[in-house]
């Protein structure tokens, strides 16, 4: 059973013909050519396929494309203008050496992007601790880096988003 749906991705509306069972991850990657959304397990554990749906980080391998009609989808391609500078999170990942193969990276970026937006929306945000960042990222697997640089990049940007100075030690023991 196929149907024609409208998907709003990164601010652009796309009309696509999909089968009802078409995974959102496959639709984004193969029908819309937004290949930056990676697929690592297709059973909802690794987080590589994470996109944002109306701001919430979700697993696109656990959704059908037909389920998300009318919602605003953000993929890694929508984090920064392709012709412009990188998003500060992407920049931080680069500076901290937070990627090796880079396959997990889009999923981590979108998970973290939700946190940054939420912090910015709060009136008096509390900068998160390293421990909180680690728990927040626990739904994303990385097999290359050992997580340290990813945690540092996200912690730095979350601290900025909460209006604090990331160069100040956060009171945690950051050996």
């Amino acid at each position: 059973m196929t149907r024609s749906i409208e998907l709003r991705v990164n601010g652009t509306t796309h009309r696509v013909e999909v089968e009802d069972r078409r995974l959102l991850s496959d639709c984004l990657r193969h029908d819309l050519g937004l290949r930056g959304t990676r697929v690592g397990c297709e059973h909802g554990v690794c987080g590589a396929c994470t996109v944002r749906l109306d701001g919430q980080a979700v697993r696109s391998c656990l959704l059908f494309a037909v389920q998300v009609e009318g919602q605003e989808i953000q993929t890694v391609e929508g984090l920064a203008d392709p012709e412009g500078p990188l998003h500060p999170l992407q920049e931080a990942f680069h500076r901290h050496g937070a990627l090796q193969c880079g396959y997990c990276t889009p999923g981590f970026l979108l998970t973290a992007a939700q946190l940054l937006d939420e912090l910015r929306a709060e009136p008096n945000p509390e900068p998160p601790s390293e421990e909180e960042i680690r728990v927040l990222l626990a739904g994303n697997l990385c097999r290359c880096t050992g997580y340290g640089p990813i945690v540092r990049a996200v912690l730095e940007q979350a601290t900025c988003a909460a209006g604090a100075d990331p160069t100040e030690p956060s009171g945690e023991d950051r050996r």
Partner: protein
Amino acid sequence: MTTLPPVSVPEERLDEGPPGRWLGRPTPRLDDEPLLRGSAWFVDDLAPWPGLAEVAIVRAPLAHARLLGVETAAARQMPGVLGVLTGSDLERFLRPLPSVLSEAIPYRPIALDRVRYVGEPVAVVVATDRYRAEDAAEAVELDLDPLPAVPSAHAALDPTLPPLHEGLPNNVASDRTLRYGDPDAAFAQAELVVRARFQQPRSICTPLECFGVLCRTDPVSGDVEAWSNFQGPFSLQVVAAQALGIPPAKLHLRTPEHSGGSFGTKAAVYPLVVLLAACSRALGGRPLKYLEDRREHLMAATAAGERLSEVQAAFSAEGRLLALRLDLVDDVGAYVRAPEPATLYRMHPCLTGAYQVAHLEARCRVVLTNRCPTGLNRGYGGPQLYLALERTMAIAARRLGLDPAELARRNLVPPAAMPYTTASGGRYDSGDYPAVLALALERFDWAGKRARARAARAEGRLVGVGLACVVEPSVSNMGYVDLASPPEVRARRPAKSGNVEGVSLAMLPDGTVQLRTTTTPQGQAHATVLALVVAEALGVDPRQVQVRAGADTAVGPWSISSGNYSSRFAAVAAGAAWQAASALADQLRRLAAQDLGCHPEQVLLADGHARLVDDPERDVPLRRLAGRAHWDPASLPPGVRPGLSLTHHLAIPDLPAPDAQDRANGSATYGFLCDLCEVEVDRGTGRLEILDYLSVHDAGRILHPVLAEGQVHGGLAQGIGMACFEQLAFDPDGQPLSTTFLDYLCPTAPEVPEARTVFVESPSPLTPLGAKGLGEGTTMSAPAALANAVADALEVEEVPFPLTPEALWRVVHGAEG
């Protein structure tokens, strides 16, 4: 404006070699942007040919059974299906993949009349897209007659179970006892003999991206073109071509510029290349695409095999390790898939670890089980060896009443003995092991932490400290796996030795430099490091160096040892690039000397210019020299080749084939690391918390501190995973129980501690840049260091492995009755 992340720059270097203009500095990676933006091309993003059909593989549901029939008629009728192929349909296009061990163990990429592991391919469904291919795969019916399964290494040793392969008397595929020195005499003299047994389950480094292959054959010429995320070694290209019955030159392998991790696993992609090539041929040359899913990966891709080890260690009263007897049993699964049984022999030159031991006996058995064939996984034999060896050392220290660090110190190979030849023929090339240990003990506050752990235990907490000293071999000698065959058999075959890498380097007319090699990176930023190496030699900006490190066997350069394994990149590939760039620099100096009216020796290359050493104001841009080499070859001085391009191959010296006494220098170079950790076990839940972890690593010259640290931390995370969580479990019938990421637990951010790393640099005298490999050391050391710390915390000699909460809880509560 960009401040780089803190890196532990060594405060005390054993060698005072300064970093270069580019090398040894924490410059940013050059290849990040496409990955950060999501525009990088991985294997699933490729569509190199029109008319690409997609493939789903029908896999065996039983571990051991006769395959009486495959019913495909219903599947063929399903919408979108272009073909369904079985082992018999493909038989005329396939020969068994050659094995180093025995022709009596034929291994085919698709089963013919018997299945020997769950997940073994039995049919291939080709359809217009993957959804339809999977629909039809479900409609394929198998007629199976179950046979008793051999589900474990223990079972494989049971002579009453039937052999997996008709041509074999039992399931021991190889049984060799190798003796060096006089172990019997040494054991007879010993004051203390420690005997310990270890069992390590199967695990897998499981990269985040699964295997992928795109393949087509030319129906007229029979040429095969395949894109895949294969990682080498390219000796397997030859194996694959033989299986297809075509000359290797007709098998054109390519890899995309990006691969989503591998850690050895993607060496096992090659049988899928063979399978898809055969299918494409059977379908008149149709281009095909196959992407493995996670379930298939965890069930049937590859694994680090189960290892059973028994160690006997003979000590003098003073704690001198006099001799070792090892009995090692390695499960390779249902077939001996090349390069296996290399897991068992990779560490052979290092069986005595970091210690000076003259007498050694090793019984090495390769056994067959009804499980998927094993293969490369980060550490490759190292985690297995060091868990057994370093646990044994800790047990000995306890029995001798010594601090384990003191016992290690008494036995470490001293710097005066370097280069040191081990009993089994390894040649440790450089290093001051006692100095690394001393530095580690001091940085960690070993004595203080050890005393505090003891005090905490007196109060009822389960705190302990652990130590592991590890020699990390890198750049494998292609000949070492021949140790699996006795000398008289080896003598009848062509010898194998060494490890070659090639690079092609050219300066274009505009001064841009192009480097091509076949190191098939999977996240290690080879392009960045190679650009830095070339920039250093030529005095250009690294951003002016374009690197292509993915494979293209039609273009090269490559050799059978090319690829990304045995941590060989820094030593052999960066070394080859350095030598090639130095030769190109020589050409540029000759050209410049002509323009500047001086001798080539008086020319310095820096900042994109060739300058007179004594008068740096007099210079000529490299761009102009390059232009002349291309546009005006008539003007070139003698010794300068037109086009400024060269191809260079490097083989690290001192890597001969194994000798008649079974001595083999299995690797070109050997690093050393000392890991110390402090842990606490929760009495109530058995949960293991890593309180502190320090790794002091001597990997020779460090080419890039941030990337090096990334390798050490990544390797450590995988070592921790293997030690604490990861286990491919099977039921008694050989059914895999860990086929999703919910069952196969990889560590996530909260489980991996922020470890400290210190690099000490004693350059290798054998590699062009003094670099040694460093990607596997902490994977080898972490299981041993953590197991030692747990044994200390629980005050026991026997610790379970892996150190799961359940297993530790049982030890705690068993001991308390």
